[in-house]
Each structure stands twice: as C-alpha cells, then as structure tokens.
C-alpha cells in the first residue's frame, strides 16, 4: 500500500493503483472536510478487506473511521441519519453482493428523502462498494448489478475505470448533494498504476469519457470492462483496420446521453460491454436511448456483449462468463460487418 497523501505533500502526483487512488481520495476529502466520516465492516483498524481505507483509522481516529456491527441496513440507515446532522457519511458495503440487505434503506429512503420532503431534507452520502468478477472470489462476491440502482430515481451511480478518475469521481461524489452509489471495479483495483495528483480535484459526474477516438463503431462500457474493450479496439485496429471509439460512461446515472448519442451519430454502429446479466442490464437502456435519439444514423443492430442470464459461476468458469477481449472483438466485428 502506498503511503498516504500527507506523507507525500511535497509531490504533485503519485503513481497509484485504483484502490490506492480511492484511499488517497478518501484521505484527501477527510483532511479537507471534518464532516466526512467513513463507516462499515472492517474499515477501521483493518483498513478494509481490500485496504481501501488503509491508514485512515490511524490518521483520523475512531470517531471518523468507524468499525460497525455486521449489518448493512444498519450501516446505510445510520448513515442516512448521520447525513441529517451535517455529516457526510461514506459507508462501505464490503462487497456489492452484500448490499441487498440494505436495499430498502437505499431505494426507499436514501433515494427519496429529498423528494419526500420537497427538498427540505437531503441525503449527501456516498455508498462505496467493490463490484464485479474475475478475482476467483467465492459465491456472492462477484455481483455487478448496477442496473438495480440506475432504475431508482434519486440515486446517482458512478463507476471509475482508472486511478485518476477514481480519486476525482470520488471527490465529486462526496461533494455531491445527493446520494451516490460508488461502484469500484475490484478486478482492476491493483491492475495498473497511473499518476494521480496529490492535490484535490474533481472529475465531473455528468460526463462520459471518450477513451479512444474512432469512426467505425462506438463501444460503450465502464468499470473493469473498459480495459478489455480498449484492448479489443486496439487489436481490431491493427488486425482489421476497424476503428472503434471506446466510451467509458463513468457515471451510470444520470447517463450522459449527449456523449453517447453524439458518438453514435458519428459511427452509426454500437456495441455495449458489461459484466452484468444481459437481460435488463444497463446495455438495454443505452441501446434504447440510442435508437430513440439517433435511429436515422443506425446501420446495424446494437450489440450487447454481456454476462450470461445466469448467476456468476464459481471461478473455474468465470472467464467464460465475463466479457473478454475475444468476445468483444468478435462482437465488434460482427456489428461492423453487418
């Protein structure tokens, strides 16, 4: 684990992994704003099961980095209460698969207190959760059900795909006046490093990122799938001269439909890559939005390259379940050659 920002004050940037950037982001926000508190299972002394909250307990003490009992509805419910007292809670759900016990508190309360109270009360809170597959984890540890939260008005949903974005999106989420579900692609927690400014900065919650310019097809994705999508695009560019534009949505709700449709208007073709089961996944929303806004430009069916409509298998089969570069490449080719 890298040292915290405090010990690196002299530097302008550090080379961090995604999970280190999260930790650095939490550190930065907590150092700036006393009202930010982190709470959850094993986030304190243990620094989080993925070390995302490493050193925070030592740095900010047990009143701001709080080990809670094992109860997700309790954690989120308590966080809603905390947020009514001027605090900005950043609860961690240990894995996305363990958010479901808190589902009611999230969708019936965190998402709705603002509208229920006609703006009188609000819930500035960031619920962090590692999500997605590919790390040989046991059952229930590989969930990717962002679509559940996207379908609940009142929530924002964010998922970074790079260390730089992780810190910047986390800052923007913490500053946001509304509840944000912050989904961390744990497959790439430590996959690569990137320069991350030590100073505070925000990455906007309203803009998707064009990760690769291209003219033949638009590939929409987010989180851990951004990498295989970029690899597939690169491979196809070299092997077939197919020039794919790769768009990392970053914020999944509200969607940046402008960037989505602008790209499509240019390419006329699209593929969407996500880990979640295909049926009812976010890919459907993106494809439908595109045909609503830009049907006249459409030259081929929009391809969804997604998880199976099946629970995530145990790890011996997860490589087949998750979209890999090979599946993405094949899907892009099929769409371009349609």
């Amino acid at each position, binding site marked *: 684990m890298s040292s915290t920002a405090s010990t690196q004050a002299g530097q302008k940037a550090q080379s961090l992994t995604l999970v280190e950037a999260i930790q650095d982001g939490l550190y930065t926000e907590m150092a700036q704003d006393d009202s930010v508190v982190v709470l959850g299972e094993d986030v304190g002394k243990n620094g989080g099961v993925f070390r995302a909250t490493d050193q925070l307990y030592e740095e900010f003490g047990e009143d701001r980095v709080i080990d809670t009992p094992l109860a997700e509805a309790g954690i989120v*419910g308590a966080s809603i209460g905390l947020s*009514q007292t001027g605090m900005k809670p950043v609860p961690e759900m240990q894995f996305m698969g363990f958010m479901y016990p808190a589902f009611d508190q999230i969708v019936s309360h965190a998402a709705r207190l*603002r509208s*229920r*109270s*006609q703006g009188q009360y609000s819930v500035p809170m960031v619920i962090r959760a590692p999500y997605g597959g590919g790390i040989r984890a046991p059952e229930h540890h590989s969930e990717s059900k962002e679509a559940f939260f996207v379908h609940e008005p009142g929530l924002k949903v964010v998922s970074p795909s790079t260390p730089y974005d992780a810190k910047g999106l986390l800052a923007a989420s913490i500053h946001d006046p509304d509840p944000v579900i912050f989904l961390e692609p744990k497959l790439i927690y430590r996959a690569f490093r990137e320069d991350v400014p030590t100073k505070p900065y925000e990455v906007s919650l309203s803009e998707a990122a064009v990760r690769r310019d291209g003219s033949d097809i638009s590939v929409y994705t987010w989180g851990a799938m951004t990498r295989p999508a970029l690899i597939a695009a690169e491979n196809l560019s070299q092997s077939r001269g197919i020039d794919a534009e790769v768009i990392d949505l970053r914020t999944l709700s*509200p969607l940046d439909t402008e960037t989505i449709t602008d790209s499509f208007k240019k390419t006329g073709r699209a593929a969407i890559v996500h880990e979640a089961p295909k049926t009812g996944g976010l890919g459907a929303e993106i494809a439908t939005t595109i045909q609503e806004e830009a049907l006249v430009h459409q030259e081929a069916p929009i391809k969804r390259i997604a998880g199976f409509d099946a629970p995530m298998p145990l790890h011996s089969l997860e490589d087949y379940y998750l979209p890999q570069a090979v599946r993405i490449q094949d899907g892009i080719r099929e769409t371009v050659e349609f």
Partner: protein
Amino acid sequence: MNMKNEAGSKDVPAAVREDSDIVQILDAEGDVLPQASVPDISDRQLLELYETIKLARHFDQRAISFQRQGRLATYAPMTGQEGSQVATSLALAEQDWLFPTYREHAAKYAHGMDLASLFEPLRGHREGYAIPEDVNVMPEYIPIATQVPQAMGMAWGHKLQGKTDTAVLCHLGDGATSEGDFHEGLNFAGVFDVPAVFVCNNNQWAISVPRERQTASETIAEKAQAYGIDGVRVDGLDPLAVYKVASEALEKARNPGPGELRPTLIESVQYRFGAHTTADDPSVYRDESEEEVWRDRDPVDRIETYLYNEGILDSDLESEIQDRIEQEVSEAIETAEQTETSPDNIVEHVYEDVPARLEQQRDELNRLREKYDDGAFSEVLE
C-alpha cells in the same frame, strides 16, 4: 404471563394491573395511585398536555369523517393513543428530534408542526412533508421500522459532534419490533451508546395480527436486554406516567449518570381503539368487546379527571378549550384544502438539480397538457 392479557383477550389488560414492572401514576379513573410520584409539571404545562390531547381526539374524529366524505385519502386513526403521543412530545426539548410513523399525527403537532400540514399528504400533496427549518420532525415513515436505524444515526451524528444536548425520539409500533431494521438500529444504538429514545407504541395489534403472534417474548421492553440498553414499560394510556418515563429517558440520553447508558427502549402499552386505517375493518379479525376494558382507561378521561381533581380545570375552561380546538382543526382543514400542486412538481426535488432527461420528461408532459387538456389525464385510468 402478561402476554396473554396484552394479546387482546378479554382479561384485564396488563396496563391495568398493579404490576411492578409497569410505570403508572393515574388509576383507571384518573386518580393518583398510592405511592405514585407525580412528575413536576406546571399547571400551564398540564393544561397544554390536556388541550393537545383533546385536540388530537377531535382531530382524529374530524379526519375520519372527512375521509368518509372523500375529502382525505386513507387515514390512520390514533384514538386511545393520543395521550402517549402528546406526552412523549411534550417531554421533548425544542432541539430534540422526532421520528414519527404514519400514526403519530398528534406527536408531530405537539412538537411544532402545524395542523394543516398534517392534512396535506392525506389530500395527495407532499407539501406537508416539507417541514419548516425550525421544526425538528422528520417526514413520517410508512415502511415499517425503517426509521429506527435512521433515528439511531441522527442521534449518533449529534453525539459525534458533541451536541449531546440534543436527543432523538423515535416512534415505532409493536409490529415493527419483528423487522430486521428494528434489531439493527437498536443494536447499533447499544454499541455506540447514542442519545436516542425508542418508543414502541404497543397498541396490541399490527393491522390484524395480535401482539402474541408478533413475538413470543413476554414483553417488548425486555427486548432491550438483547442490545445492552435499558428497557421500560409504561401504561401508555396514562399521560402523566408516559411524560415521566419519556422525560427521564430523554434526560438520561443527554446526560447519563455514571454507569448509565444513553439509549432506552420504552414500551408504551396502549390499545388501538379504532381501525388500523380507514381502509381497515377490525370486526373481521377481533372481538369488539376487547376494546371495552381499554376504553375504561381512556387517556382523555383520565387526564381530565386529574385536572378537575387538582382544581386546574373547570367546566368553563373545558368548553373554552373545546371551542378553541374545534376552530383550530376547522381552519387547518380549510387551509389544507387550498393546497394545490403543479404537475411540474413530479420532477422537482428528485435531485438537487433536475437532470436533463427528467427535464425532457417534464417538457413532454407539458406539451401534452397543452395539446390535450388536464382532464384527459384522468379519463381512462381505470
């Protein structure tokens, strides 16, 4: 076993008996029980308690009748429970926070909400949930027990910020004790020792489900032990006893003595005199005669008798009060009936800023409202 009595059999209710484990000050008639210590309340406060309880009773009757006339949507009555509601709220300091359910109309009013705002949601307008800055009440909770961890969290937030002069009082029903959220919230409250008082309004019924089918524990108060917090039972039809218990619990929440714990679970033993809501028909599932033993202990009569006994109330004052509350309730419903909401409101306050897509949806709606007319929207709903 108290259980049997509370369960709604025709036996004497637990709250009646000279039970050592239940706090009582007034007997069924409103006379002070031997050895009971009456809390130190000024005459002015006693009259406020009385007037507010009377108002609550009247409010309830008017609301039920308005509902029958189609002027309000489904309403959850509180007759029999007003004494406890008002007493708990009057025990609050102004800075304390209140977490009500759909039934605590009087508790909200007694902690500062205006009466008209109570009617607004029943007329289909959320305005009543837009609680003014200076009133420390949360919008009512309909999903059962979900308020418990939230109330815990608010109390915790105050404590973490050193504002321990502020306590949180959270209402819940007997049915709510079966939900996971009750458990998680109270367990957190014990672990983090927060300044919160949880008042379980045990009215013996959760819609059609009697208390003994809700849990096999003898009392609800004893559930506190599982969380390492204090539990206390009080006669919920005795406003003085409730006031005393709530005041002490709130005081302890703010300033615990040495070795004392901040949180308390109060079981306020009551009875739901009426239907669960105006959509409910209790004759389907319970014997109406069961009500009688509880009616004999009507909180309104008891506090009234007490005040007459003490010479604080006489018949002139009683009718002056009665006139005042009738007028207040009438005015409130009139005000509420004037509330109007624009369809634009649908998209507002979902987020701090209206997202682009939601704006489009509003524009589309307004386009249609202009093209057709508003009447067209309610034409073929069914």
